[in-house]
């Protein structure tokens, strides 16, 4: 397994996947920074506002990022016609495991960078609200779970079609559906996995003052049930991708 993972790092050389892992948190940070809180009231509720908006940003950015990471991970084998060669040099299990671990590592890096950017933004913009460490950790776990689920779904598409286009198209359509579902009743959003970032969020609009155009964000309960379902979906998609690699004749 170590050898297989080492070769995945060798293959990643000059593939510039790291830039994708950096670009997504950077885009989210720039987007969040542009809505800089002003005034004492906003600064006192700024982390809540940020953690409310981040799932929406993730709905826009993450599905496509997952499709890009997953498709590039397998596309490199398709373009290089290396699958047959690899299957004579290593087990299918070690190849799949290395790809899964490498992809999961890239996603973890992306999520950690996004969390770090959130904390950094609070520090730079002098938020006065207490740092919500537990909520941030929950957000990280939820984002990671949904990302993994989407990553394995896109990897599965890539394995089926041996072409990155279906995965990318599904990701674009999924992003639009996810975004649409974010503004629909919660029950609707449960049927759109690409948008699970939003119903998994632990913040909501508590008070909306229409006259003064002010919003006060408050916490909701952690959605452990949906998180569990997301992890189950991720596991099922992982298993489906593995079965495909294990059984597909090349």
């Amino acid at each position: 397994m170590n050898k297989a993972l080492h070769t995945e790092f060798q293959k990643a050389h000059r593939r510039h996947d790291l830039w994708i892992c950096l670009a997504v948190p950077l885009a989210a940070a720039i987007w969040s920074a542009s809505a800089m809180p002003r005034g004492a009231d906003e600064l006192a509720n700024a982390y809540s506002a940020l953690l409310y908006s981040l799932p929406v940003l993730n709905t826009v950015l993450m599905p496509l990022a997952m499709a890009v990471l997953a498709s590039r991970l397998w596309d490199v084998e398709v373009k290089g016609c290396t699958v047959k060669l690899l299957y004579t040099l290593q087990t299918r299990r070690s190849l799949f495991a290395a790809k899964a671990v490498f992809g999961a590592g890239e996603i973890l890096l992306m999520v950690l960078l996004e969390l770090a950017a959130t904390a950094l933004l609070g520090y730079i913009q002098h938020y006065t609200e207490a740092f919500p460490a537990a909520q941030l950790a929950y957000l990280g776990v939820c984002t990671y779970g949904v990302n993994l689920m989407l990553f394995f779904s896109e990897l599965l598409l890539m394995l089926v079609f041996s072409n990155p286009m279906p995965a990318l198209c599904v990701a674009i359509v999924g992003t639009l559906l996810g975004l649409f579902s974010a503004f629909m009743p919660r029950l609707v959003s449960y049927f759109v996995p690409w948008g699970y970032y939003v119903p998994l969020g632990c913040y909501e609009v508590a008070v909306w003052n229409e006259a003064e155009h002010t919003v006060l964000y408050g916490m909701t309960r952690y959605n452990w049930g949906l998180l569990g379902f997301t992890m189950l979906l991720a596991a099922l998609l992982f298993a489906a991708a593995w079965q495909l690699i294990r059984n597909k004749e090349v």
Partner: protein
Amino acid sequence: MQTVIETKALCKQYGSRMAVDHVELHVPQGCVYGFIGPNGAGKSTTMKMLLGLIHPTAGQVTLLGQTLNEKNRLALLRQTGSMIESPAGYLHLTAQENLEIVADLKDIPYKDIARVLDIVHLTQDKNRRVGQYSLGMKQRLGIAMALLGSPKLLILDEPTNGLDPAGIQEMRTLIQSMPAATGATVLISSHLLGEMEQMVEQVGIIDHGHMLFEGPLSQLQRHSRGDVAVRLLNPAKAAPVLRANGLPAGDSCTVTLPPLQDALLADLVQKLADSGAGVVEVTPHTKSLEEIFLSLTGTEAAHHE
């Protein structure tokens, strides 16, 4: 002579179609073995089964003296180099980096890379990205990957496909030299009999999944000679010469002769020229694989009678 590859009743069925039907292959050690058949005959499918890339519907594969199974597959393939259908190579990496990946997976020290690059004449281009390589260079890189670790057996599926004439000649020379240069036994497939004749010692012919012939090339060549068409300016003057040699004569300007030994044919052409028949063209026809098969089976039937 010890066999490096042996298959017993090897079969592969896709739906109702038998892609490979009870193939018995025997590749002797230290030779270049040509596996010949038209496109879709079952060559690649057989080779994939030899490498465990696809599972046989029935039958058995013995590689390097051991029956191939899931447990020993990778251990056996560590002693085998292969290139199936198209050359492999990560396009964004250099040849050196590609070979380092293969060397790591084969547990081979990087110092062997220089040796294989030298064999395939890619040393000068080892630091260029494979995406910038010509097809011929990619084919040579594929062979370099197969050669890493000095395998006892090389399985190459149509390695000259898509190459220009110079590339084909270079590849032929390279493959022909391998048993002597590396000690490897080579199994190479092609759909062109003429291409194989220049580099192999043993041949196996497959068509529609059936093994039609297996044996030394010389034995096959005896059956591959076809008719010879001779175009004449004056067939009337040629007729006595042809009859004197027991050959059919007619009024047509083109005379079709049965397969003849080279010396006999040269002698006959000389006599025709001396007679004033005006020989303007001699065209030997090479038999198609199917015709060779019919010739072979016809001969066998005659022997049995």
